[in-house]
């Protein structure tokens, strides 16, 4: 895609910028859509309508209005807050989410940076989220924020372990850390004659791995039932309590971007990335992008569905689930995946 852009745009620098800005535009458009969709889905689940007025048809412009309003809001920095860190945190959290998109293979024709250690880079860069949340909570100088930040630190650091181990089980099957290569390996429909060559169908233990990955993904993007960092009914708004206006908007954007990022990672690792489920039918770079986003959005939808159905776990139960259930299970499963690969 970079070559294509360089062909139509005279300056290669501008072409590079356009190339790099693609995920940013995607995140923004997606966030506008996803926030609206979440409210509509919540409405559907709860026997209501959700946004109806703003913009005409089913309130499609609701998130645009929200964002435009947030820009106008007063930017409050509490007097006793650590001003520099307070201002830095929202940018850092958004930068981290954005940077992680660099290694996601959106289609066979587009990947920001086709590096060999893509999966490793992605897991490493998402740790920035933890740091920025702790930064935000500590800099706010608010007790509720602090409690929220401490919970985040514990939660995200812990859940990184099962996430990494489940990702590792895919990596040993693929024997590559390049996400583009991993996707390419899943092309074709050979399993039992019709099933696509997606990793989730290739190895029965990878189904378990996906289940574990999905649970840890919920915790990593702090969604219900693991939304303790911002749990509204306990901590007012957690680490976001003191943020107002667009600074808060950045947190919200990052939260949704994070959801998409992890869903897309899940789609890449387990559901064949940009591969069409029908073999060569409806494949190609553009179709591929469509399939990829569809798979990602389906996972996002499931996350929303869970959010509006389940209550929230307590902080010690959260840790218990991680350390005494998910981590041992994921290690055992890792060994089983490896054994299966050796035998078959």
């Amino acid at each position, binding site marked *: 895609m970079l070559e294509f852009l360089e062909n139509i745009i005279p300056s290669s620098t501008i072409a590079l910028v356009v190339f790099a800005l693609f995920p940013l535009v995607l995140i923004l458009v997606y966030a506008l859509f996803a926030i609206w969709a979440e409210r509509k889905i919540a409405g559907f689940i709860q026997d209501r309508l959700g946004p109806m*007025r703003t913009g005409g048809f089913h309130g499609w412009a609701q998130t645009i209005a929200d964002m435009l*309003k947030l820009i106008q809001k007063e930017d409050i920095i509490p007097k006793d807050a650590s001003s520099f860190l307070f201002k830095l945190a929202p940018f850092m959290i958004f930068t981290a989410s954005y940077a992680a998109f660099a290694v996601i293979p959106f289609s066979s024709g587009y990947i920001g940076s086709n590096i060999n250690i893509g999966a490793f880079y992605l897991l490493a860069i998402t740790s920035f989220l933890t740091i920025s949340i702790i930064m935000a909570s500590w800099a706010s100088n608010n007790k509720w924020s602090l409690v929220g930040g401490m919970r985040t630190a514990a939660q995200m650091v812990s859940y990184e372990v099962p996430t990494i181990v489940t990702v590792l089980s895919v990596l040993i099957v693929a024997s590559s850390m390049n996400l583009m290569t991993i996707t390419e390996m899943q092309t074709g429909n050979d399993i039992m004659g019709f099933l696509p060559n997606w990793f989730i169908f290739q190895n029965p233990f990878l189904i378990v791995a996906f289940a574990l990955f999905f649970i840890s993904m919920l915790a990593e993007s702090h969604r219900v039932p693991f939304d303790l960092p911002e749990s509204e009914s306990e901590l007012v708004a957690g680490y976001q309590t003191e943020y107002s206006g667009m600074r808060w908007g950045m947190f919200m954007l990052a939260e949704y971007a994070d959801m998409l990022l992890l869903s897309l990672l899940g789609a890449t690792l387990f559901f064949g990335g940009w591969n069409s489920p029908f073999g060569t039918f409806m494949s190609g770079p553009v179709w591929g992008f469509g399939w990829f986003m569809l798979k990602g959005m389906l996972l996002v939808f499931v996350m929303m569905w869970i959010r509006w159905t389940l209550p929230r776990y307590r902080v010690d139960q959260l840790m218990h689930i991680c350390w005494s259930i998910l981590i041992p299970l994921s290690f055992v499963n890792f060994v089983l995946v490896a054994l299966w690969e050796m035998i078959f």
Partner: protein
Amino acid sequence: MGLLDKKYHDSNIIIVSLESALNWARKSSLWYEQFGLACCAIEMMATAASHYDFDRFGIIPRSSPRQADVMIVAGTVTMKMASRIERLYEQMSEPRYVISMGSCSNSGGPYWEHGYHVLKGVDKVIPVDVYVPGCPPRPEALLEGFLTLQKKIENESIIESKPSDKITEEADRHETT
């Protein structure tokens, strides 16, 4: 209306369309502060629930005052609570609005005469944009209050009023005081 309030001196097509876009955004996304005081809070909850559904108008609750645009004073404000209400209002970020819901917060309601501990109208401590009458107001009445607030927001301006307007404004102020 917050940051851009009366920052521009003359009106031209860009300013006017910007103004209407900004006003549209503000009126379409009124996030209210999630806190209730008394009986009216139950009706406020009923308005937010499925049957009446605040979300149709883009109105959602935020529990932190920093992120809220509207404060619904839903219920009786007591002397002990008055300073807290004031504090909450101060914590909200501009542009902020206040809807006084129900007789109690409008004027003390049924407690106006013998209620030694009841604040006789929340407007004694914070400025109020819209008063919703009723004891308690029906959910429809609260929605009407929001629609009235939307109308009020539509008429806000980022253009500085002309000097002649200023004089009349000041004259008005003198008359009222």
